[in-house]
């Protein structure tokens, strides 16, 4: 009974916090400035890791697909198709979101947690500023807008990695690969993956912010809450991945 009560307490507090987060901003200019900072901090600074992971995953998918479909019945351009669809449907949105929930989620939770225990959040409240809105909304806006860009970037870099891995190991010719990635393309898949990316961006930032904002105690508690932020947002990304797939692809 206790864990269930705790779960509902967290859900309730999360929605109360979101109610405060989406209150009208005090001074739009300041929020705009902060949003740009967060785009740099959460989005642009994540481009490197997303690029590295995407290129190698693209390579690995190509090689694995090639070795698992070694049959004259399968045309080799199907390798390109498999790489494209794996990146487009699952990897570039969901797996990248899981990786970012580790990087961005822990960052947000520890930043807000430290601000809480060092009374910086109280200092904002004393000034009459809605601290929840001022601190969290720029992060959410930045993530919701930037996650789709990261996803698009990941898809293209992943496709390039696939080509690199395939052509240089000789498992597929360049022409076959390029034919494969264009074969039977369904544009709606791109819409589907971008919707998922934006929603995952919201989940990662809001859940991590919730964990950080309600930190208390000292450094140990902030550390614990950062870990919880990563775990919670990862689990929610997976749950919503299933729900969104069911809603958007069936």
């Amino acid at each position: 009974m206790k864990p269930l009560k705790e779960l509902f307490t967290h859900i309730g507090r999360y929605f109360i916090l979101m109610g405060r987060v989406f209150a009208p901003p005090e001074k739009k200019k300041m929020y705009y400035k902060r949003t740009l900072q967060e785009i740099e901090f959460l989005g642009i600074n994540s481009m490197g890791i997303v690029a590295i992971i995407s290129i190698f995953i693209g390579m690995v998918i190509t090689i694995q697909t090639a070795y698992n479909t070694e049959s004259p019945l399968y045309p080799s351009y199907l390798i390109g198709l498999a790489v494209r669809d794996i990146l487009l449907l699952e990897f570039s949105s969901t797996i990248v979101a899981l990786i970012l929930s580790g990087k961005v989620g822990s960052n947000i939770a520890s930043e807000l947690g430290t601000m809480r225990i060092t009374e910086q959040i109280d200092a904002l409240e004393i000034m009459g500023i809605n601290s929840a809105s001022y601190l969290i909304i720029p992060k959410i806006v930045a993530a919701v807008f930037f996650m789709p860009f990261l996803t698009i970037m990941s898809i293209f870099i992943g496709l390039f990695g696939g080509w690199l891995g395939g052509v240089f190991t000789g498992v597929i010719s360049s022409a076959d690969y390029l034919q494969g990635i264009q074969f039977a393309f369904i544009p709606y898949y791109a819409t589907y993956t971008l919707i998922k990316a934006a929603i995952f961006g919201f989940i990662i930032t809001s859940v991590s912010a919730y964990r950080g904002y309600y930190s208390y105690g000292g450094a140990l508690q902030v550390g614990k809450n950062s870990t919880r932020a990563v775990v919670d947002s990862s689990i929610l990304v997976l749950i919503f991945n299933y729900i969104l797939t069911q809603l958007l692809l069936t």
Partner: protein
Amino acid sequence: MIRVENVYKSFQGVEVIKDINVDFEERKTNMIIGASGSGKTVLLKCIVGLLTVDKGRVYYDDTVFSELSFQKKKDIRKNIGMVFQGGALFDSATVEENVRFPLDMFTEKTDKEKYDRVNECLERVNIRNANHQYPGEISGGMQKRVAIARAIALNPKYLFFDEPISGLDPMTGIRIDKLIEEITKDFHITTIINTHDMNSVMEMGENIVFIHEGQKWWEGDRHELFESENPELNEFVFATKLAKNAKDQKKR
């Protein structure tokens, strides 16, 4: 004037402050003193609205502040400045950005006017050539002074300090105390200081409230403090040999 009327606050069933009634005098240095864990920080947080009171009321002039919504409290909060125990400066902002922050949020001043006001406030707290340094790069005493500069940036009517000199060496502590006293007089501010430092109390206390086990135990000024026969107050105030000797000397 700030009036606290029958205020109670408890956490998880434990009453931390009970039935506190105090009038904090206008344009004076008011002090809340008490041992660690006596409830003085909770009382201060109830007064500024960081904690909601369970029972009772907090008045700012004629307005019942404790019963206002967050939105309605904003107008009064613009008249409040607070310096937290650790300074609570924004780590990711420079000294200048910290002091400028309330001006950015609540005024329509031009950049030049804001810059001038920031420098005026920093000058008032004797900080020069540190505008572009981050809080982590300056000393604890300087952080406190920057926090004071930020608190006075909007010309507040009320200034609150939570343990302003804790963690500072005695000399720096005296300088901060002097600064608080000067600011209170110069800007006609009502100051409320939460402290357990007896030097500060003896130097500045115009209206002193002693909190013991969550209740108001005694109230008076620094001269009456010496005369008081209240055993709990005497035990707290004259805990050190030095203070005891000072009291004995004064009696003689």
